[in-house]
């Protein structure tokens, strides 16, 4: 156990907040898609990877300034997520659930390997944006602009998301579809449209997460979505899959857990990635439905 001074501790808190935010943004995509399709979208981590690469190419090849490059990257990622659902999942909507899951795993491998082919397996460096890379001193605590930016952007995005889900007609329809397809259709809700919107939102949040991720950990490889994807799936399960608030909570638990584990017990730093899985096992043993989840009885 390491004893640390206050400024170092606060720096770790800021780091935890930003890592937790990134996990939360990615975990929401898993949980929303699961909530509506009962599908674990295994390709979600790869959509995250694409978001980072789209932003990278928008800045490096198309030489767009960041304030244009980022929205363009987000839009392309959203479109990609929608296309993925349209071609990989929708044709299997009425097939046994295992088929659509296998399709998701296949899509994940396809995107990763296409990534290696097209982007190349060599790591790329995410461009540095001066504005966000300044170091701020708050008292004796030094933090980078990116570490402050990440939680702020995440907070704003989450507020908008919760507003959409809870206060708009579309959000209401999304909640209805996640409970009962047929009853929602009887209200005149077009289920396909709602599913498209869900994939769009999930992919958009993944793109926001990917761009922020790129600014904080500026190394891009086509497999970069693998581990965050897996962890954020775990975050969604910890929080109670299907519940957006749960995904946020799960994301922050993992973010804080990982950073603090390494900060306080540096000897365990090699086990950093294992932390998520240990928490997963504990949650599954103690409360399998997750923190916010309700135990449900599956109707046959």
């Amino acid at each position, binding site marked *: 156990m390491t004893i640390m001074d206050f400024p170092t501790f606060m720096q770790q808190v800021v780091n935890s907040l930003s890592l937790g935010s990134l996990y939360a943004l990615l975990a929401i995509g898993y949980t929303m898609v699961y909530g509506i399709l009962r599908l674990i979208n295994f390709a979600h981590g790869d959509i995250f990877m694409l978001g980072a690469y789209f932003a990278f190419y928008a800045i490096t090849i198309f030489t767009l300034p960041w304030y244009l490059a980022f929205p363009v990257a987000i839009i392309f990622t959203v479109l990609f997520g929608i296309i993925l659902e349209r071609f990989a999942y929708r044709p299997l909507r009425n097939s046994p659930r295992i088929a659509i899951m296998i399709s998701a795993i296949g899509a994940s491998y396809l995107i990763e390997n296409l990534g290696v082919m097209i982007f190349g397996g060599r790591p790329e460096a995410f461009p540095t944006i001066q504005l966000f890379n300044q170091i701020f001193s708050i008292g004796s605590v030094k933090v980078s602009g990116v570490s402050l930016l990440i939680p702020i952007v995440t907070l704003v995005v989450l507020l908008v998301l919760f507003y959409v889900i809870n206060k708009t*007609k579309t959000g*209401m*329809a999304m*909640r*209805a579809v996640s*409970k*009962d397809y*047929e*009853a*929602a*259709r*009887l*209200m*005149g*809700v*077009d289920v396909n449209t709602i599913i498209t919107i869900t994939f769009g939102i999930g992919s958009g949040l993944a793109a926001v997460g990917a761009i922020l991720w790129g600014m904080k950990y500026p190394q891009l490889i086509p497999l970069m979505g693998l581990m965050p994807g897996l962890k954020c799936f775990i975050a969604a399960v910890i929080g109670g899959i299907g519940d957006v608030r749960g995904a946020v909570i799960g994301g922050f638990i993992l973010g804080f857990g990982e950073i603090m584990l390494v900060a306080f017990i540096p000897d365990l730093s090699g086990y950093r990635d294992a932390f998520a899985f240990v928490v997963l096992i504990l949650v599954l043993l103690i409360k399998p439905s997750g923190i916010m989840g309700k135990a449900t009885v599956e109707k046959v």
Partner: protein
Amino acid sequence: MLEIKDLQVHYGGIHALRGISLNVEDGKIISLIGANGAGKSTTLKAIMGLVPKTAGSVLYDGKDISQDKTRDIVKNGLILTPEGRRVFPDLTVDENIALGAYTRNDRAGVAKDRKWVFELFPRLEERKWQAAGTLSGGEQQMLAVARSLMGKPKLLMMDEPSLGLAPLIVKSIFSIIREINQAGVNVLLIEQNAKAALEISDYGYVMETGVITISGTGKDLLVNDQVRKAYLGE
């Protein structure tokens, strides 16, 4: 207003509807009775476009809607209150009611109808902030009906509205159905409570394993020997 001709449905290898023809005339309450598995619910689902039809036509005000999407059918005023109520348990009563008006864009009309359903079901107004899943069975049925009314139905189809409810509540549901009909909404009713249904119906159809076997006015069916034996338990 609704004319169904030779409607056929295959359901996972079963010929569930073998050619159903029925008519709903303006201003009337029509009921469809029959044993479990006769195909009553399938008939309504087929009208709504929830199950694919293999043959036949559904004419609504003279226009064939048998290939229309569910959302367009709902928008045109054909609304189904499904069996088992199917309210959205996590949504509040008010949100369930708002979802009933999902396809409508006339804000003033929606607000007016919301007031109207709260007058019909004052209990729901008292509980409008409650999650629908916390309501009693009877209240959930009221919510399901209220939600359907919010879609501004010209024809309201109700699948087993009295199922599993206490006799007193059943009575009030039936008097509400009458009230709704008097407000100008046509009603197509499926009921296992054949007696209560026929008593308020202008016309009735009896279904048996995918076909209609008997039809007649509500009064005629109530005194029909076959109907009395098989469905009224007399």
